């Protein structure tokens, strides 16, 4: 069963939010499915955290509706919602021990002491903190606090787990480990995870679907691959990964695609699905990712097209090398990446070279 077959868990219907004169959410429409790992991605101030907090009930909306599991959330106070949150600061209660923190929400279930201990123990084991129950909250590292926050939220078996930039306070290695652990955890518990992040890589790695937000609006909502390969606007393309842009002119063709003339690359045909912004005329742009270009070494033939250029900058990353290549007839250099495999020497600055490309990797923007 794919995600799209599942029932809707969260629905935003034209959600608007004003802080005084400031328009924080400008008509959000989206549905999030049950069991989905959904990310809200965007730069700081884009409204992603505000949107998450409307689900938790910590922000009232100015108009529109938020539906949780089919019910209008406006009438449900935060403590009665079937959602739990992992806060950015983790919000671990400093006056309680780890197990008191994890068991905090179980008080109202009137469990026996044994049952309580068993549930807390299970939750701690699930997040890999077995045996940490008696520790004081302040004696924990950042990664451990995050696990406590996760256990404390998941122990209540919510329908939706809300994660507000949960990994941003961790160092790179730990963050990458936690990304994988969170994905596994989500598969294990099978509930909806909604993640807020400004880290595009994190969103791509973890999500089933991503909503990219700018200035209080969703710019694009798609699965990670579509978002990366077929961004709908320059803004989205720029925010997710690196994308080269070259000026072009475009003329529509009868099949819905475009005949384009790209500066430096020449003429080619772009089918409709590679032109989500449907742009014609002069002054349009063609975008492509660095890894879709290939440097052709002596004697190599392109699989599709090739164009000459000069290496302007070389950035060596160990496994990869990034080149800035100035294509003949284009003012701005384009960036391309090559995997460093045996028999493929790193080129020097100033080397004349040929670059292979394919129209299938191009995206047309307004």
């Amino acid at each position, binding site marked *: 069963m794919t995600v799209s077959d599942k029932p809707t868990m969260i629905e935003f219907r034209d959600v608007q939010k004003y802080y005084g004169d400031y328009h924080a959410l400008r008509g959000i429409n989206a549905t999030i499915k049950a069991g989905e790992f959904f990310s809200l991605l965007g730069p700081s101030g884009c409204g992603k955290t505000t949107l998450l907090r409307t689900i*938790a*009930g*910590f922000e009232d909306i100015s108009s529109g509706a938020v539906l949780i599991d089919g019910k209008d959330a406006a009438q449900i*106070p*935060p*403590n*009665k919602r079937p*959602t*739990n*949150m992992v*806060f*950015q*600061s983790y*919000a671990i*209660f*400093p*006056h*309680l*021990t780890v197990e008191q923190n994890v068991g*905090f*929400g179980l*008080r*109202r279930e009137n469990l026996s002491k044994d049952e309580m201990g068993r549930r807390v123990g299970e939750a701690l084991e699930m997040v890999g903190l077995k045996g940490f129950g008696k520790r*004081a*909250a*302040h004696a924990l590292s950042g990664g451990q606090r995050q696990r406590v926050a996760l256990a*404390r*939220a998941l122990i*209540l078996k919510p329908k939706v787990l809300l994660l507000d930039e949960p990994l941003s306070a961790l160092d790179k290695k730990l963050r990458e480990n936690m990304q994988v652990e969170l994905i596994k955890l989500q598969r294990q518990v099978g509930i909806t995870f909604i993640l807020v992040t400004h880290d595009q890589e994190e969103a791509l790695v973890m999500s089933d679907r991503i909503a990219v937000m700018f200035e209080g609006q969703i710019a694009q909502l798609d699965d990670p691959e579509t978002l990366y390969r077929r961004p709908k606007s320059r803004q989205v393309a720029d925010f997710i990964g690196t994308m080269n842009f070259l000026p072009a002119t475009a003329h529509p063709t009868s099949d819905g695609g475009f005949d384009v003339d790209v500066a430096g690359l020449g003429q080619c045909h772009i089918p409709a699905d590679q032109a989500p912004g449907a742009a014609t005329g002069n002054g349009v742009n063609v975008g492509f990712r660095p890894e879709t270009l290939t440097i052709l070494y002596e004697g190599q033939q392109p699989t599709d097209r090739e164009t000459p250029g000069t290496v302007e900058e070389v950035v060596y990353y160990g496994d990869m090398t990034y080149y800035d290549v100035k294509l003949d007839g284009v003012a701005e250099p384009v960036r391309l990446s090559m995997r460093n495999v045996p028999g493929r020497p790193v080129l020097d600055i100033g080397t004349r070279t040929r670059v292979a490309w394919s129209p299938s990797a191009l995206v047309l923007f307004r």
Partner: protein
Amino acid sequence: MSSGGFLQRIGRSEAANGLTMISPTAIYAILLLAAPLVTVFVYSFMADGPAGSLIADFSFANYVKIWTGKIYRAIMLRSLWVSMAVTAVTVILAYPVAYFVSFNVPPNKKALWLFLITIPFWTSYLIRVFLWKVILGYNGVINSGLLSLGIIDEPLTSLNYNVQAFVITLAHAYAPFAILPIYVALEKIDRSLLEAGQDLGESRLMTFWRVTLPLSMPGVIAAILIVFIPTIGDYVTPDLIGGGKLPMIANMIQVEMLKQNHKAMGSAIAVSAMLIVAGVTLIFLLLNRRFLKGQK
């Protein structure tokens, strides 16, 4: 190594710098605080002779008299009772004020509110106590007001010359001292903890009970100590509001020391009062440690 070089090195050391900086204060404190304290302590073990003289006959006789004598005990218990009542009333009234300023006043108005809270300090303590006498007295504002309105036929006596009047006066005088530490403790609470409390299914009231209140306890205990310690030794209020009929420890010390000229007995009462305060303080400090245990 020459001695000159050694002295120079000491002169340049951080410890020496520190000592130099605190020395004026230290000398002041030793002369005006430690020395009299030691004197009082020594006096308390001596015996009173005729006409204010002291007899160097060291014993616990004064202490035995104080801790077994009915009158002394009654006065000490009254002091303890009054100061505990004042502390309880002050802190219970101060908490909502501190809570309101911390949680409900917009951040740009907080400084103004704190400033307003300190306004009572603009008048001298003595004048404030005297004003309460004017308000609460037999012919005071309340009684004459109620009389002229015909609500009562003769002045109420429940407002003046009694412990309630002490509590009203002292609670007002010490309210800012209680509000400020509680406010500081409440300000330090990470607001996301309160959201977390609600997120985990607790109502606002239960979140207050399980999160806000325990986290603000260090401030509450500081407030308790700040109010309790000076009120138990208060002299002005029992004298003015109580009309001298309900003496507390300080009044008793004054009577022994100045009126009866019993320096040894007065000193022993003073030391006993200090012991009571120290005992109560210790209890609260231990409590505070318990609340601070889980926090940084």
